[in-house]
């Protein structure tokens, strides 16, 4: 517990959190536990925004916010940490989230990470945290998160939302069912609806965000009231239910200890981004950091180029190409991986 909490927390700590510590389930001791806790939020779109916002306001000690994307205008309907200025300047979401969260609660240590969550870096990104929260928009990342958390013994909470529907499920490694106990095989890209195809209401994000962030508080204060099983909700049909979910002895991950998503070499070079006409290209082999200024000079004769501290943005051949220092690029204007790979090879190189 740091003495500095009261100093730069914008007032005395007991005043700041009084409406939370008055609740017996938290209390002053629970608040101290929250202040010494460390949480990773993997993905900071709609769900990640809701979770990070609730946890920062609740006084969690440290938040690591990991996101690979930048803010766009069509995010603002539901991604509550961001505003029009973030979209206009194409600020990476992790950076914009950190700016906002620090303004909300300066006592929380925020660590923004502009990066994909991959088998290469998953263990590092989860290092030292007490809990991981799923703010991702794809199953590739979730099955990896499940493997990594099981291997490291870190609890995590699955949150999924689409249209007016949502689910939340707390995974305590080797104590409760894991993601693969419920859904043994990872749904392949294109087989499940995305925000692109089915849309999403901001109310379901807030509802599931509230369920999940409250589970997070229970877990961090050591409450016995943790929810078991899979919570599901249909906000349009007015349904909220929970199913019991026992561990499955033949679960490949928590039963048999096969962490195939974590152990896999990076196999996918491209990912279609949820809610966008865009594809991310992630070169499988990369050297050091890309020199964005040099790339900008090379591309300048070919189209409109702008760079900021975090990324390069170029309008090329009808596509909007955004390149990050880690050599990832987001190609907007197509949802075809092959087209995106071609654009990448043509302008950035392979």
């Amino acid at each position, binding site marked *: 517990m740091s003495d500095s909490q009261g100093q730069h927390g914008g007032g005395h700590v007991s005043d700041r959190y009084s409406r939370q510590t008055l609740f017996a389930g938290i209390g002053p001791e629970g608040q101290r536990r929250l202040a010494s806790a460390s949480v990773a939020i993997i993905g900071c779109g709609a769900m990640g925004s809701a979770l990070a916002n609730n946890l920062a306001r609740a006084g969690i000690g440290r938040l690591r916010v990991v996101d690979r994307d930048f803010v766009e205008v069509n995010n603002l309907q539901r991604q509550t940490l961001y505003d029009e200025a973030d979209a206009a300047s194409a600020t990476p979401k992790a950076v914009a989230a950190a700016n906002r969260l620090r303004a909300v609660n300066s006592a929380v240590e925020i660590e923004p990470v502009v990066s994909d969550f991959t088998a290469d870096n998953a263990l590092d990104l989860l290092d030292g945290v007490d809990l991981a929260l799923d703010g991702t928009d794809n199953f590739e990342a979730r099955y990896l998160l499940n493997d990594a958390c099981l291997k490291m013994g870190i609890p995590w909470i699955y949150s999924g*939302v689409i249209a007016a529907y*949502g689910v939340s499920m707390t995974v305590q490694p080797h104590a409760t069912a894991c993601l693969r106990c*419920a859904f043994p095989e990872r749904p392949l890209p294109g087989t499940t609806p995305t925000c692109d195809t089915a849309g999403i209401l901001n109310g379901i994000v807030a509802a599931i965000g509230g369920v999940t962030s409250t589970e997070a508080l229970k877990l961090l204060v050591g409450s016995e009231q943790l929810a078991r099983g899979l919570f599901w909700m*249909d906000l349009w049909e007015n349904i909220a239910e929970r199913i*019991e979910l026992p561990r499955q002895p033949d679960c490949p991950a928590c039963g048999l200890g096969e962490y195939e998503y974590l152990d896999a070499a990076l196999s996918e070079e491209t990912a279609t981004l949820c809610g966008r006409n865009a594809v991310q290209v992630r070169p499988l082999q990369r050297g050091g950091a890309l020199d964005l200024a040099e790339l900008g000079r090379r591309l300048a004769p070919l189209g409109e180029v702008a760079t900021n501290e975090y990324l390069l943005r170029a309008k090329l051949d009808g596509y909007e190409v955004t390149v990050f220092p880690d050599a990832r690029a987001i190609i907007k204007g197509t949802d075809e991986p092959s087209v995106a790979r071609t654009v990448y090879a043509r302008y950035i190189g392979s």
Partner: protein
Amino acid sequence: MQVRIRYFAALREAVGEAEEALDLPDGATVAQARGLLAERRPALAKLLPACAAAVNRGYAQAETPLSDGAELVFIPPLGGG
């Protein structure tokens, strides 16, 4: 016997209803109910394999037997965030 089938998310949208009654032979299992539904409603055939099933709000295996009046809900993995 008759069971109450409930649909959630993509299944609910594919069927257009939140639930329906399904007649099954006595002693039918969750797998048999899945099979029959996939046959009757082609829109469900692609969605059902990825779904978790719960009988009377408890997770059910393929071989879990159903009883008259049971409630069977299919929950697809939700991908958005």
